[in-house]
């Protein structure tokens, strides 16, 4: 092992293994995770060449080969728990997308939740056995997050008892669904249902798209790959165009809404139920933000302790770049953020499971808040993690830009999450809608509960609007609980300001929509402040759960850094609202710098605790043993351009040119 890394590990003040248990949710879960990961990582059937050197087409083929193998092996090993499947899958695919993602993650679950028993009998077992490979075709070229705008039509023909599917415009072409381009032979297609001359809105239909056996597109179907993207090379995101394509009436998913043989439409009972799936996926994305940022931090921090550059003290050897304050200032707040998001992700998952129980018993009361919160946190964490991964990459200097660092891959795999499953700005505005609604409730004398209950205090604060001085002294700079209060005040002020501005616009303008649009910058700010408060609060709450004193001490420092760094970056909000004084802000700046020094000796142990196998990181710079330079050279030798000592373009272009001149 590299000497610097060994020294870093020897001098840690706590046991990373204990912290790993905290992150996994117990020692037993750590053990089981490692066991399952090893099954995949050590399996000779699942090995292959470094993907960085393969073409897109080769990457797709490698991925599909592994996906098929994975499905087989999961069944062979009897792995069925969702967490365990996830561990296995991310070890097989090393955190990259794969062509069966939509089949396993959307097609099968949608059959389970939205298909009738008869439909499940027809489709589920063939799909489970991969005779049917499906995708979920919702997004169109012209419409994404705004679902009502989708243009694909399914018109019911009572004469033949069929639906006629059409893509009436170029913009109605289904565009982006994963696995659609080359892999799937079926799709769940979302289309506007027309029956008896009326549009009944968006419904889901099971549509065969390719011939079983030959895999050729069926007549009336145009299907293909949408071409190269920013990452996602393994995934055949596709397009689908349907031209008077007919499917039997029984292929509409009819567990809730139904079309009877004569064309009579039967409405579903509640539309809130679909919230559940969305909440689940968004909570999962919050966890994904954490994982991606944890990986990036691991690479950047290990590399920064191996890399030596320049001099701090004249005449002394070059220091580790992690000893520079500017490098610490780039990386440690991100490390703290990675921990914060990990705990938030775990909280969201737990809450989702708790509420699912309530929902099954018919209690939907907590769903709206959780729905709003998951939208905002999805946006908040993906934005932050996205920027953080880039910061990590740039903190690795030139080598971060090489694919051997693994960071380009982590970035391109993660960054689409700012857009998919709900575009982030739209998500923030959804949260804002809930916040403004809650504010209005409070104003009309009702109490609100849950994460927004701080709004109940607003009316009390208004009695003494000028006496903010009393609150200043209340901030204890080393007490996370006190910082939670400060964030709470900021959130309530910004929600109030946005709500009032919205009201003012409403008084001046014609429509709700216009007023909402004219306030949307304020509204997004309010949502961000709310989410930031929630993250600080949940991180702080986590501290009391950590029993080991040494681990607790180091995680507490991270929590403080997360909270104080956030204040320093948004000092304007705190100053403008009179929540903090100039002096307090100066103290915050100072304390942030002190915390950098305090965290520095434990930085490597803190990323070791994430417990990523080298294969998961896929990074030469982030190797556990720190032997980076020799391995960069070994890696480069495999570059496709190095296949021959003299490249063919010398003979083709260079030599003829020299001859001509």
């Amino acid at each position, binding site marked *: 092992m590299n000497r610097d890394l060994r020294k870093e590990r020897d001098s840690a003040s706590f046991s990373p293994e204990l912290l790993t248990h905290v992150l996994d949710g117990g020692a037993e879960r750590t053990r089981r995770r490692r066991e399952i990961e090893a099954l995949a990582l050590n399996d000779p059937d699942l090995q292959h060449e470094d993907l960085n050197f393969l073409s897109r087409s080769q990457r797709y083929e490698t991925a599909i080969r592994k996906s098929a193998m994975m499905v087989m092996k999961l069944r062979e090993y009897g792995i069925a728990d969702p967490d365990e499947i996830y561990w296995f899958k991310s070890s097989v695919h090393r955190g990259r997308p794969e062509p069966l993602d939509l089949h396993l993650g959307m097609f099968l679950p949608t059959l389970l939740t939205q298909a009738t028993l008869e439909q499940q009998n027809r489709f589920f077992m063939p799909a489970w056995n991969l005779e049917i490979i499906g995708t979920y075709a919702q997004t169109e070229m012209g419409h994404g997050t705004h679902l009502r705008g989708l243009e694909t039509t399914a018109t019911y023909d009572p004469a033949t008892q069929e639906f006629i599917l059409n893509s009436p415009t170029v913009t109605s072409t289904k565009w982006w669904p994963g696995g659609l381009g080359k892999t799937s032979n079926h799709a769940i297609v979302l289309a506007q249902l027309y029956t008896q001359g009326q549009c009944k809105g968006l419904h889901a239909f099971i549509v065969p798209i390719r011939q079983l056996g030959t895999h050729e597109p069926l007549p009336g179907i145009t299907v293909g*790959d949408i071409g190269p993207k920013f990452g996602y090379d393994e995934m055949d995101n596709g397009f689908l165009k349907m031209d008077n394509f007919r499917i039997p009436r029984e292929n509409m998913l009819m567990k809730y809404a139904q079309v009877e043989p004569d064309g009579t439409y039967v409405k579903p009972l509640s539309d809130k139920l679909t919230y559940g799936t969305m909440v689940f996926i968004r909570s999962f994305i919050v966890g994904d933000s954490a994982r991606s940022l944890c990986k990036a931090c691991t690479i950047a921090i290990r590399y920064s302790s191996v890399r030596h550059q320049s001099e701090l003290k004249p005449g002394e050897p070059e220091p580790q770049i992690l000893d520079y304050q500017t490098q610490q200032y780039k990386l440690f707040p991100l490390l703290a953020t990675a921990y914060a998001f990990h705990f938030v992700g775990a909280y969201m998952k737990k809450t989702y499971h708790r509420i699912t129980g309530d929902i099954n018993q018919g209690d939907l009361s907590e769903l709206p808040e959780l729905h709003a919160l998951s939208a905002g946190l999805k946006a908040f964490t993906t934005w932050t993690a996205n920027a953080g991964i880039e910061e990590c990459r740039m903190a690795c*200097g030139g080598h971060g830009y090489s694919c051997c660092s693994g960071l380009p891959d982590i970035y391109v795999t993660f960054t689409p999450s700012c857009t998919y499953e709900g575009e982030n700005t739209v998500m923030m505005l959804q949260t804002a809608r809930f916040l403004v609604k809650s504010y209005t409730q409070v104003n009309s004398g009702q109490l609100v509960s849950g994460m927004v209950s701080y709004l109940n205090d607003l009316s009390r604060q208004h009695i003494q609007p000028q006496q903010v001085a009393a609150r200043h002294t209340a901030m204890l700079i080393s007490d996370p609980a006190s910082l939670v209060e400060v964030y709470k005040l900021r959130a309530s002020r910004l929600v109030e300001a946005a709500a009032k501005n919205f009201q003012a616009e409403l008084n001046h303008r014609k429509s709700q929509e216009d007023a909402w649009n004219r306030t949307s910058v304020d509204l997004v700010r309010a949502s961000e402040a709310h989410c930031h408060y929630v993250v600080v609060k949940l991180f702080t709450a986590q501290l009391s759960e950590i029993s080991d004193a040494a681990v607790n001490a180091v995680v507490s420092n991270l929590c403080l850094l997360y909270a104080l760094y956030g204040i320093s970056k948004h000092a304007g909000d705190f100053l403008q*609202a009179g929540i903090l004084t100039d002096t307090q802000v100066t103290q915050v700046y100072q304390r942030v710098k002190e915390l950098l020094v305090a965290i520095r000796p434990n930085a490597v142990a803190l990323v070791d605790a994430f417990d990523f196998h080298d294969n998961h990181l896929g990074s030469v710079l982030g190797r556990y043993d720190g032997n980076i330079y020799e391995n960069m050279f070994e890696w480069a030798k495999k570059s496709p351009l190095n296949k021959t000592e003299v490249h063919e373009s010398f003979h083709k272009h260079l030599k003829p040119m020299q001859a001509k001149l």
Partner: protein
Amino acid sequence: MDQWNRRGNFGSSVGGDVNPDLRAERRTASFNVEKLTAILDGGADNTSTRRTVEAVIRGDPVFSRENQYFQSQNERYEAAVRKAVHLKEKMNQMGWTENGPEHQYCYRALAGDIAFNVHRVFKSSILALGTDEQITEWIPLADKHYIIGTYAQTELGHGTFLRGLETTATFDISTQEFILNTPKISAMKWWPGDLGRSATHAVVFAQLYIKGKCYGLHPFILQIRSLRDHSPAPGVTVGDIGPKMNFEHIDNGYLMLQNVTVPRENMLSRFSQVLPDGTYMKQGSDKINYLTMIMSRVGMLSSEVIPILLQACTIAIRYSVVRRQSKLNPRDPEAKILDYQTQQQKLLPLLATAYALHFMVAYMNKFYNKGYTEIKQGNFDSLPELHALTSGQKAFATDCCTAGVEVCLRACGGHGYSALSALPFLYTKVMASCIYEGENTVLFLQTARLLRNAAAKLQALVQSGTAEYEAWNKCTVQLLQAAKAHSHYIVVKNFIETVEELRNEAEIQKIVKHLCDLYALHGIFSNMGDFLHDGYTSGDQMDMVTASYLDLLAVIRNDAVPLVDAFDFSDESLNSALGSYDGHVYQRLYKWAQKFPANQQVSQAYENYLKPLFQSALSKL
């Protein structure tokens, strides 16, 4: 599908048939776009030269970028070499010179997608660092491309910190040669462009040793490949460093040297010389070296970095008036996404930034040319300021452009992630600029060193007995912020001065002033804490800033498309399905996706992998 095709030629730039939403935007422009283009180009003559060059490039199929997004690294590299060779012939044919204005416009038209860019650096380093005899010997060979050069400075273990480089050049008096060595793996040259597969020669930087004493870093000309069969020279190990986030067309390389000898005359000796007996002599001032660095920073900003932000704004803003999503008013059709305040807040401050930085670099060019003349006459007075200005602006502008292009990418929703939008290409390209030609954090700190007033705290610490180097490291976060703030101030100041100079063009001055105000207010709005903290601005003033800022968004919204049209990028140089002049976004996306090779042939993946594996899966279940 036929009704989608009737618009015909998707490649052409300005067709009569334009998407009606875009046409409507252009009809209501408050100013004359052509006039603004001429101002941005620095005169109508330049605009006309540029367009002539673009037409020549467009008319030549060798320069086509049509299939760029579908090519492998190998194909991209080969295409870049082919284009570079062809461009040389083309320029000869047209009578364009390498230092003439046409060359720079060729580069813009080709979006930099050609090989041998480092060959120019090779030449300019010989011109700057070589003696007259060395210049006479090497430059004609390089001009004729008998040799292809690279500039090998950065190593695996060291980048911006030059003194730490580890390659050695030991002088052997008995043979009158330098012996060059890579003593350890971290000393391997790593990253130089054109090195991996193309270059025959390199200017290599190495620590000079004479009789056991180290004299620091010096440049040596080294032949690395045979001129006959291109095979590596004895003792030379050379190759490509493997895939990167972008620049697939460039063969960034590694170079390892084992006892490679070069004659004494191959050390570039304008400023220091080794005599036959091993005596080391310094001569003249090497301050002029700084000038090379300053020149390359100004050059990269004006030809590489800032145009990318301009292009990204063009794409994102045109797309945002073609894309309609959701409703602002229940009775209206779906709204253009540029009508949403949140979309305006993402894109319009960037548009203002694009103008601000464009004017900034125009100013830097002027300042540089003035300084260059003075320095050539032996007057070095302007050098420190020029150096601080270019360091700070390089870091500031590359940061802004990198962050800005990513915002543009994400502002285009899902389609921004498609390679066909061109935004992934632009983003991964511009982000590299934060590192090369000096890592940004280091450059900001160089600027900070020259900002005395920012270092008040530093002084206090030094006075209290802390050693200066320690004090410096303890304050670097603050110094960095000071340097950023300083650079930001310079950009705002220059923008205001530029607006004043436009007094003869009332309409243009009005809209550019709006952009300037937006740029300044957005800067305050986004750095609110800084302004409130020192008491420069009160909370009430901040409310006014926010209100005026939001009002300006709505004003600039109306001219957003004409303002990007004025950048006058051809469709070929944008190479974007989302950003073309005619706005036929969806048709182009569909057309271009069809060209993807996987859609043109029967996929073997199903037969080879899916079918057999699923069948074997089935038999086991």
